[in-house]
């Protein structure tokens, strides 16, 4: 299987991102997303609670149904809270996009394999997150291994009626560290909330 660079895959999204879209990012994706620039509707979920970015994003999507919420999650994070996929599809918010940056490892703790990784599974088959997404009832499900395919189809992915589930097969970043909060979290939450609730960002 081929994999993309995490940074390059995020750059695709960064170029397409509209001013009214919320991007909620966690762990490795948050670290790299921050390096691409800042935006008032970025919510860098660091510090985070383990596996809770999708639930946090769902809450945002339900509170502000006119704004698209894009959650950048990791595969390790997703595995900590697979039930959140069922919670999301029960509510079926059309404005919700979950992007799973799947590198098959716990990157920030030193690249240990997850239990879903092909390498460590007795049957030798990686867990198929897309099938899980389909089974949970996501309206739109995509998987990309190639940067070129992702680049070409990303506009369609973001335009699809959600909830949308996207798996990006990415390379781990050796030495990748835990993202640090770019400012005091309480202050960031307050500022973000004020911006998020502004109608003129619809």
């Amino acid at each position: 299987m081929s994999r993309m660079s995490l940074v390059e895959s995020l750059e695709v999204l960064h170029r397409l991102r509209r001013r009214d879209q919320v991007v909620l990012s966690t762990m490795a994706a948050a670290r790299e997303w921050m390096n691409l620039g800042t935006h008032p509707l970025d919510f860098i979920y660091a510090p985070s609670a383990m596996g809770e970015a999708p639930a946090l994003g769902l809450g945002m999507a339900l509170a502000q149904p006119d704004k698209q919420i894009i959650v950048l999650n990791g595969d390790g994070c997703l595995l900590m809270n697979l039930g959140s996929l069922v919670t999301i599809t029960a509510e079926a918010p059309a404005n919700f996009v979950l992007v799973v940056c799947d590198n098959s490892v716990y990157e920030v703790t030193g690249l240990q394999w997850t239990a879903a990784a092909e390498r460590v599974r007795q049957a030798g088959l990686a867990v198929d997150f897309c099938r899980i997404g389909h089974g949970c009832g996501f309206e739109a499900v995509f998987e990309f291994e190639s940067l070129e395919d992702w680049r070409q189809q990303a506009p369609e992915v973001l335009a699809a009626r959600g909830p949308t589930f996207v798996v990006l097969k990415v390379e781990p970043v050796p030495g990748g560290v835990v993202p640090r909060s770019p400012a005091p979290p309480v202050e960031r939450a307050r500022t973000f909330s004020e911006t998020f609730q502004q109608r003129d960002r619809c």
Partner: protein
Amino acid sequence: MFSGLQIVAELQGMGITHVVWLPDSTLGQWEDALSSSSAIKLVRVCREGEAWALAMGLSLGGARPLVMIQCTGLFESGDSLRNAVYDYGLPLFAIIGYRSALNAAANDSARTFTEPNLKSWGIDYRLIDSPEKLSELAAHYVRCRQAHKPGVVLIAEGRM
């Protein structure tokens, strides 16, 4: 102790927009009333940790959520509670079913650890252990909201 209609009336009076829940056998009896309320949206989660994060997202978006779980779910969801309430300073509020609280003879560790757990998290809580105390729910919510701090109301469960 309370009917679903009583609870919904209280929550509507408090201005609650969303109840994020994972029921136990006591809270579960309120399902029909909660799900048929036109003012309150019932959001069902699969594990209690989701409830605090989901409520955090709702709160950031201007909604007024309430988490409704059992005390065993409180134990499970500590990391999510810690993050929302302390890392991000969100004054979330919860109704928590207090298993075996009304059964002094119960050999139930959930009963043993519920209040010490809330104290260790520094959460201001009130115990509702009789029907005449229902008004404590809204009163405590208003106090916590005015003080911009998290709060919990424990609903005693077990024998009446």
